[in-house]
């Protein structure tokens, strides 16, 4: 519940400051380049979150610890079990 509350707070704060700044409701005189950076900001945050997710997944895939001995042993056990069951009459 805590994490959800934190995310909702963050979204609420962003969701109120960004429209307020882009529509000029606060009456601030922002420089043109600052406005140019401001209006695509939600899309930018979404894209960077997506890139972060993709990068983390890729990194975890690349550094995942394989257990090759255990994999080979498991495969041979599967073959044994299939042969045994086939001998007892179960059709695959």
């Amino acid at each position, binding site marked *: 519940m805590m994490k959800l509350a934190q995310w909702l707070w963050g979204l609420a704060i962003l969701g109120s400051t960004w429209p307020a700044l882009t529509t000029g409701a606060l009456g601030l005189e922002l420089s043109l380049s600052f406005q*140019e950076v401001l209006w695509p900001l939600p899309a930018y945050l979404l*894209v960077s979150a997506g890139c972060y997710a*993709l990068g983390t997944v890729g990194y975890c*895939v*690349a*550094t995942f610890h394989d257990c090759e001995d255990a994999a080979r042993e498991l495969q041979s056990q599967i073959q044994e079990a299939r042969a045994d069951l086939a001998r007892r009459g*179960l059709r695959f």
Partner: protein
Amino acid sequence: MATGTDQVVGLGLVAVSLIIFTYYTAWVILLPFIDSQHVIHKYFLPRAYAVAIPMAAGLLLLLFVGKSSPPPLDPGQGFGRTHLRRCFHTLALLEAPCPAVTPGVFLLSFKAASQ
């Protein structure tokens, strides 16, 4: 450490995400502060595309996930054929009325769990 194709795919994903992130950051954050006559503006599309392209890509992704269907299950001889076929049909019926993201995600997780 992971071996072979796992490493290649993983590092490829990392590289792709870094490339997309740096290009997009340069496009959205850095470009407005660079003089409009500079040559670097030649390498970037007009600014409106910085929002339009991710939005279109996100929509396509949502539609694709919502439309994904479970693979055809092979009942085999052990189970009763009708039981598994009924489960499969129920899943397909669940998916049909709500072409939204949630059933697609649910089906994907079910497919992953049943393998």
